[in-house]
């Protein structure tokens, strides 16, 4: 379980997050949505202690994040973050094995069992055949799946993802999120695409200008009267036999009737 209570964060005087709260029950998948600059990534970073909130408290299974030793935190919480391209030609196998490092003592080498866990994680996301390729040379979608494999190899029961569907074509967007869904670990995922959020999340938190504009089930949050003031775009809900789909159009083009 992950909770954030009254979390504020800012650079200089401007607040990027202002009194934000969040509760993720065990096994739940919670989506963070909101327009660019609404504080989604910043909130996510406070959840894995990459940023220390100016005020408020973040807890993991009831324990304050600040009190957890870095490696202990890494054993319980894995993260798929956006990171600039690294130049170092690490292979995919080495990259995924890094996920085992929080479990290894300083003088310990990764054991055969660690290698098996890494292999299983690669198989799980369907990129076992890339094990000996250089990570930096992969396509965006392959990289994303390798990073998820690394998070899986970490064997933590909490998972945070920052826009894991970036750079993926539609099929892999669904594949990655349904994989996350089936892991049954406590998950927070930043998403841009509201239709993906509707399909794969149990709960949504809608951020707007650093505050929580709405929170609840996808059905409760993904409504025109909630979304339109935040995104400043016209929203149309279309019920289909496969759940609700959202359609968008600019507000100034809306039919005057």
């Amino acid at each position, binding site marked *: 379980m992950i909770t954030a209570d009254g979390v504020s964060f800012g650079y200089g005087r401007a607040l990027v997050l202002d009194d934000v709260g969040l509760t993720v029950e065990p096994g739940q998948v919670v989506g963070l949505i909101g327009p660019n600059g609404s504080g989604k990534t910043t909130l996510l970073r406070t959840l*894995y202690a990459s940023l220390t909130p100016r005020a408020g408290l973040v807890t993991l299974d009831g324990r304050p994040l600040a009190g957890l030793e870095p*490696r202990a935190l890494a054993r319980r919480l894995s993260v798929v973050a956006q*990171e600039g391209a690294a130049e*170092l030609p690490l292979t995919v196998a080495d990259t995924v094995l890094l996920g085992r490092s929080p479990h290894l003592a300083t003088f310990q080498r990764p054991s055969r069992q660690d290698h098996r866990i890494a292999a299983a994680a690669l198989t799980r996301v369907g990129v076992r055949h890339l094990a000996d390729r250089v990570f930096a040379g992969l396509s965006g979608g392959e990289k994303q799946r390798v990073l998820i494999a690394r998070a899986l190899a970490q064997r933590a029961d909490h998972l945070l993802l920052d826009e894991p569907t970036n750079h993926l074509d539609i099929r892999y967007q669904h594949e990655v999120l349904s*994989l996350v869904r089936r892991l049954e670990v406590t998950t927070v995922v930043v998403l841009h695409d509201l239709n993906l959020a509707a399909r794969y999340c149990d709960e949504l938190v809608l951020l707007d200008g650093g505050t929580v504009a709405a929170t609840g089930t996808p059905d409760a949050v993904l409504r025109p009267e909630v979304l339109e003031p935040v995104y400043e775009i016209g929203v149309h809900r279309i019920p289909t036999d496969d759940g609700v789909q959202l359609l968008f159009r600019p507000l100034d083009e809306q039919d005057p009737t």
Partner: protein
Amino acid sequence: MGLTTAVDTGPDPDDLDDDVDDDLDDDLDHAARRRSTALWIGGLTAGLLVTLVLAVGLGAVAISPATVARIVGHHLVGWPGEVSATSAEESIVWRVRLPRVVLGLLVGAGLAVCGVALQAMVRNLLADPYLLGVTSGASTGAAAAILFGLGAGFGENALSASAFLGALAASLAVFLVARAGGRITSLRLLMAGVAVGYALYAATSFLIFAADSAEGARSVLFWLLGSLGLARWSVPLAVVAVVVCLSVAALMVWGRKLDALAVGDETAHTLGVPPTRFRVRLLVVVALCVGAVVAASGGIGFIGLVIPHVARRFVGAAHGRVIPVAALIGAIFLVWADVAARTLLEPRELPIGIITALVGAPFLLILVRRFHATST
């Protein structure tokens, strides 16, 4: 339709643990990976021993490897008890060449592993150990010692001591400048290193200008280009040995942390490696190691830049393997570069920095071309 099939592939979540226990076959060729690393390290260690014996034998007076082995064995382990060599040969091997070869392998290993660490730390494959202003600091210290007799209190070790202190002072300055904003990022570290380096370069030039001594300027220049000529069994050599061995050991132990840091600060953090704290530790190790090495041998260039790339080509980029392999290759390469420096223009001795640059610069050009080919 394609969508639903895509969604339903893959095993159930409950199977994950069973997968690992059942699928004994797939361990990413763990044994083969181990074996290949062990072979590289074993082979290079053998190569280093051969290098040692051959390099000691080569020079103005050639001495056969067998004689070299006997003399070294006699001095190290007391076997054989009697050496059938002339006392001149014995003196050349034991007093002149062996300390020089030993210093060479320490300097090569130290610069190579510090290069690896630096490249991971600032996340730039063109970084080298001199980036952090360490050499510039050592040069300023050495120039002050040569031209103005600084550090005379250290007696015959005045030059090494003041160069070492200069190196540490420069590292400290880089560290303080880089830390000014709170977090030490790779970019900040790079810029601080370049800025401090230029400032100290100006200081060294000013010292040479102010001293107004042609002889002194020549000594400083020679020192800047690097030489192992000062090597003998002495306290500074012992200091270099201890510092380099400890640095190599520390960096080997930190292999995985270096991997994580090389990927990115966020990644390092999420794998339980606090990036700023780890960078500070690395900075201390690299500053001490490069400081000690430069104080003993001057500013030998290109080793720290080029050897890490060679090592990566052999064993991949994971630092647990790269560090020991880079140390061994660096040691072998520098010892042979020194052999070339002292034999090519006999009886004159070339500054070793000229040799390493002659070999290293073309390599760097190839690297840059390759780099552009892959990044576009």
